[in-house]
């Protein structure tokens, strides 16, 4: 098995890069100190053999031995915490390099090594949750190196076996049931917004339309830092990862007789920004001093773990072909969960997109809501598959009852932000922006109203929903996914088949070790070679392979309806149980008065842009 996804800092490749303008201040401890003559350097910095830095008082002939005590002052390393990152507007999204040290596979190993045995009172139950995009990435990688294609279901069994046998996890889940809950909540929220908005037009309080997807942490972070005016539009529904977190800590843990802080929950995700999401204060329980998801590792990090432990994912494990357990109450022998009602439905399929099918869940729901009236769905792809518009129109009148879009990648995201701002009449952007464009925007608004819609014609209804994801290609192409097996050394022929000498033609091929990012460097070299292999995203072809793998192999397809119905029943039960337990908690611990937080909703926080930056003079 030859993966190329070894994790280094330079592999970090979620779309939006850390900024130069990190404003984490260097802390200055203002010690009272006598003032020396101006200009005289009073201390110097010394580095000892272990690499620690010391501030050392310089020999002051004028003050011999007035400071007899230890003149060496060990300096602390500057550290940037996750909360610093979240509060800083310097980077437009996460400072991923910070996350990688705080939420990493080594952190997982360190926890597992220090976890006392189950008999001990301090023992924490280690739980692993795996995203379906992660399974697809692993499956595509394993399949590409073997004759027989391997399905995500088999990968789940194999990873579960690895997690239990090699790492000591006690429970392994995939996150599709959590996604099922998220989709239900999402649909409910959409109707709340739509009906609330319809009543008084302003939709004040209850949120606005269009509703924008909330599952992509890269998008959330970008919106919080750069487009606070978009926040009211973003669904408050938690992402599947955080729904899973709630499930594990607030529903499963009590079933096991554990408190939330007695469970250690690790999620495997296709995306580095999921680490940031898990670290949000909103998902931290003050009461139990624990996070809903304690640690997030990426697909690449999981693969690295397996390699470090010498686990070969291409080798089948027992029971991996057995049908998925149908009932949530039946035990799940293949996953080795011995009891009980702590099993969750596995690998639920939600037809639509490989980024979670948020839009399609809404299309389904709206179709059902309009029910006896037949509706027709039309799809229009604009330029690339990364932006597609869906319109649901009544067959009889042609009236559009729902207009949605899928929008992947930073470029398309920009246009959605502009469009939503325009359609909803919200001022887009920061600072002086509005002041400058004010007059003209107002005038154009009037013109647009007259002609109904900027594009004219049948665009009489603005967008109702947008499935926004920051990565081109969506979540199967997340920054934490495995890269295709390194293409054979760079093609030395040009597209017409002629050999080339790059140095002669002035092309700079990055040196292997000086390249900004190992493979990335190679990839950008490839760009120069062959325009048909664009971008540093690994090849588009590979994303398609992962996409196919994602939808592959659904032996239980015939039962899908049953399984979804069953999942729905369980979801309803869980929701009410969590509500009930929250009430108990709230009354026992003096929780903030009043409103119960909805268990599967969250909130967003605009980050004020206070970056002054250095005075740039060139």
């Amino acid at each position, binding site marked *: 098995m030859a993966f190329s996804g070894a994790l280094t800092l330079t592999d970090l490749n979620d779309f939006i890069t850390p900024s130069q303008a990190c404003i984490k201040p260097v802390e200055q401890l203002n010690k009272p100190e006598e003032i020396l003559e101006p200009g005289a350097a009073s201390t110097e910095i010394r580095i000892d053999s272990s690499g620690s830095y010391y501030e050392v008082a310089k020999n002051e002939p004028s003050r011999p031995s007035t400071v007899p005590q230890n003149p060496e002052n060990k300096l602390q390393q500057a550290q940037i915490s996750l909360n610093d990152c979240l509060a800083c507007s310097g980077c437009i999204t996460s400072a991923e390099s910070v996350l990688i040290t705080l939420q990493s596979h080594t952190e997982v190993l360190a926890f597992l090594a220090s976890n006392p045995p189950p008999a001990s009172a301090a023992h924490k139950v280690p739980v692993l949750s795996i995203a379906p995009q992660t399974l697809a990435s692993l499956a595509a990688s394993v399949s590409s190196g073997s004759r027989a294609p391997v399905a995500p279901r088999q990968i789940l069994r194999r990873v579960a076996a690895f997690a239990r046998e090699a790492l000591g996890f006690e429970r392994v889940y995939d996150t599709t049931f959590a996604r099922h809950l998220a989709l239900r909540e999402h649909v409910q929220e959409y109707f709340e917004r739509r009906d609330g908005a319809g009543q008084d037009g302003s939709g004040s309080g209850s949120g606005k339309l269009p509703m924008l997807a909330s599952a992509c942490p890269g998008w959330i972070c970008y919106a919080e830092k750069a487009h606070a005016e978009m926040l009211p539009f973003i669904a408050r529904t938690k992402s599947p990862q955080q729904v899973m977190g709630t499930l594990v800590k607030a529903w499963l843990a009590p079933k096991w007789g554990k408190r939330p802080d007695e469970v250690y929950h690790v999620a495997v995700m296709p995306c580095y920004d999921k680490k940031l999401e898990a670290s949000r204060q909103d998902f931290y329980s003050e009461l139990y001093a624990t996070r809903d998801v304690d640690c997030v590792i990426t697909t690449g990090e999981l693969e690295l773990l397996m390699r470090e432990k010498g686990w070969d994912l291409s080798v089948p494990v027992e029971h991996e072909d057995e049908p998925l357990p149908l009932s949530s109450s039946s035990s799940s022998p293949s996953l080795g969960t011995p009891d009980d009602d702590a099993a969750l439905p596995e690998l639920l399929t939600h037809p639509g997109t490989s980024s979670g099918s948020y839009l399609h869940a809404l299309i389904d729901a709206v179709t059902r809501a309009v029910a006896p009236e037949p509706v027709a769905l039309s799809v229009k792809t604009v330029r690339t598959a990364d932006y597609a518009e869906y319109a649901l129109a009544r067959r009889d009148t042609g009236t559009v009852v729902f207009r949605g879009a899928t929008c992947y990648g930073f470029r398309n995201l920009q*246009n959605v932000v502009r469009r939503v701002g325009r359609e909803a009449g919200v001022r887009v952007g920061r600072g002086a922006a509005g002041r*400058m464009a004010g007059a*003209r925007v107002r005038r154009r608004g009037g013109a647009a109203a007259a002609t109904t819609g900027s594009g004219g014609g049948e665009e009489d209804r603005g967008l109702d929903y947008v499935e926004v994801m920051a990565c081109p290609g969506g979540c199967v192409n997340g920054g934490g996914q495995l890269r295709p097996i390194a293409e054979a050394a760079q093609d030395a022929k040009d597209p017409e088949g002629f050999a080339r000498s790059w140095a002669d033609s002035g092309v*700079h091929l990055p040196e292997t070790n000086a390249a900004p990012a190992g493979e990335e460097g190679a990839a950008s070299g490839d760009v120069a070679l062959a325009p048909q292999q664009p971008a540093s995203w690994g090849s588009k072809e590979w994303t398609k392979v992962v996409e196919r793998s994602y939808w592959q192999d659904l032996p239980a397809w015939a039962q899908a309806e049953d399984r979804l119905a069953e999942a729905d029943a369980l979801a309803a039960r869980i929701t009410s149980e969590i509500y009930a337990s929250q009430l108990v908690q709230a009354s026992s611990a003096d929780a903030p008065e009043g409103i119960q937080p909805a268990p599967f909703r969250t909130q967003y926080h605009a980050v004020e842009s206070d970056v002054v*930056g250095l005075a740039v003079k060139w």
Partner: protein
Amino acid sequence: MSSDLPYTIRCIATLEGHHDRAWQVAWNPAKPLLASCSADKSVRMYAYSTKPSVSAGSDDPSAVGAGRADAIALTHVSTIPTGHTKTVRSIAWAPSGRTLATGSFDANIGVWEQEEGDGDGEDGENGGGGGTREWECATLLEGHETECKGVAYSAGGELLATCSRDKTVWIWEVHPDSDFECMGVLMEHTQDVKCVAWHPSEQILASASYDDTIKLYADDPDEDWVCVQTLAGHQSTVWALAWSPCGTYLASASDDLTIKVWKRAGEHRWEGNLEIKGAHTRSIYSISWGKGKGDGGLGWLTSTGSDGKINVWDIQEPPEGSKELEHKLIASLSSSHDINDVNSVAWCARAGYEDMFATAGDDGLVKAWVVVPA
């Protein structure tokens, strides 16, 4: 001073008004109008015309010789305060001449148009240019994270490119009614991007960066914009780019005190052709490549920078038996803005004025010049 050069550079106007350093000058491609931008956050516009007294006899705006310098007059016609909260670093006219884009250190790009008609129709070709109608912000483009360093309209005016210290190059499609759609966010450079320049006839974009490289981009019809080539060779920051009017060559100016010219060798392939050394003693900040008023050839290339010197070369196709472009220094002027750095130089591209260029300096002055036979 090399007095043996065939041409001299004569100042025809010294335009005051900016109260901080002037960053860039741009000639309107359709109207007799010059724009300049400054750290004072304003854009100033100047109309120019051939003085009747001088041209009356010949009715020829291209009168030559020393008289030429007196033949053209520039006058300030309007100022846009812009509303940018920081330095306006860069300006670019759309080919129609009706729209001006401003790139600012406040990370935003302003798109400016003149208030529409008060019934007076289009201004005449020579009718005092800008007129008095107010320029207003039609759109503000946001997206850059930090200082915008460059803006440029494509030859057909369909696309606007912007670049920034945030290392990115953005491509916007111009839609009707001052609307813009983002077509690409190119994150190819590893440092500050100093400048963007469109090919004079095709949709090919070049960018220059503090990472010492030049990158070229093209639209992949099925995909997004992609980088098709990286040109390395400069030893330091590449400050400026200029395409030859014919589009076969791309000139680059750098902090390494050289100007390089790259020749197109394939649809999306360029290779080094010429290096000009020793022309400047300090950073070369700006170059411009105009048609010039020489005898055919590839036009006139001019450069300026921190040393305050202006150089003008006549560029000809390689002579028989050589692959390298022929370049001949035809005019040179030191201390063009006294002791100050000169940040921008730009040839006027309008017919009859190919011998005229403008400069912008750290002294806040904008100057207009003509190149006349010595």
